[in-house]
């Protein structure tokens, strides 16, 4: 039998390019994830991944530009939650991100956000949007 990949959109919001949007997004996503039955440890990981994504979108993507918005979508499937975060920034090549675990980068002050999202979520994709912007899509499965 084929895997059930259908998803239902639970949240579709456009947030301000402000750090407070990280709290708002975390609240929205965890509300859905709690209802689905995710355990506390996974809720913490999902919340942290969402915060890091929103901060990246606000700080590095939209650069706090009040005219730009951060798109947040939350979809649920049979055994997973999918979170999509998009910005309206200039976009970047994810291949250029330095490895935060490499010896010369270990004591860098920044550059660990996407690494942590990858560590905490089961699936992670990043893509450029047309005409501009970056979108990350991350998935967590219920254990």
């Amino acid at each position: 039998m084929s895997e059930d990949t259908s998803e239902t959109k639970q949240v579709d919001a456009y947030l301000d390019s402000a750090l407070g949007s990280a709290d708002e997004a975390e609240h929205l996503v965890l509300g859905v994830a709690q209802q689905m039955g995710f355990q506390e440890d996974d809720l913490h990981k999902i919340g942290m991944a969402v915060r890091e994504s929103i901060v990246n979108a606000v700080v590095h993507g939209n650069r706090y530009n009040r005219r730009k918005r951060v798109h947040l979508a939350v979809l649920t499937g049979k055994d997973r939650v999918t979170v999509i975060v998009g910005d309206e920034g200039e976009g970047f090549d994810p291949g250029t991100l330095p490895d935060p675990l490499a010896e010369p980068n270990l004591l860098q002050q920044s550059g660990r956000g996407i690494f942590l999202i990858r560590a905490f979520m089961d699936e992670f994709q990043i893509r450029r949007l047309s005409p501009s912007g970056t979108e990350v899509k991350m998935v967590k499965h219920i254990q």
Partner: protein
Amino acid sequence: MSAKLSPRQVGDVTVIDVSGRITLGEGSSNLRDGIRDMVAKGNKKILLNLGEVSYIDSSGIGELVSGFTSVANAGGQLKLINLTKRVKDLLQITKLYTVFEVFDDEAAAVRSFA
């Protein structure tokens, strides 16, 4: 609640009890300012007590690293005690657990500066 810092002196070691959230914004800037202030006052033996830190993000980790290097550049040492499981996990997956000297016992940590 953003991070709150309460410094106290144990011999010649400055112990900073940190509580709350160390996240981008007020939380991480409180930590940065607190450590800079200690270094400016000539305190070179700094022990950060993270036992009451409820949450730390990548920016907070960055501030810990920045504090570590700024104290080291001033000829001092910054060490950590009482990591929660989540903070310990974060330092392990970012390979920073081997960079910081970490203790569970304050007296042992204070003695280690001698």
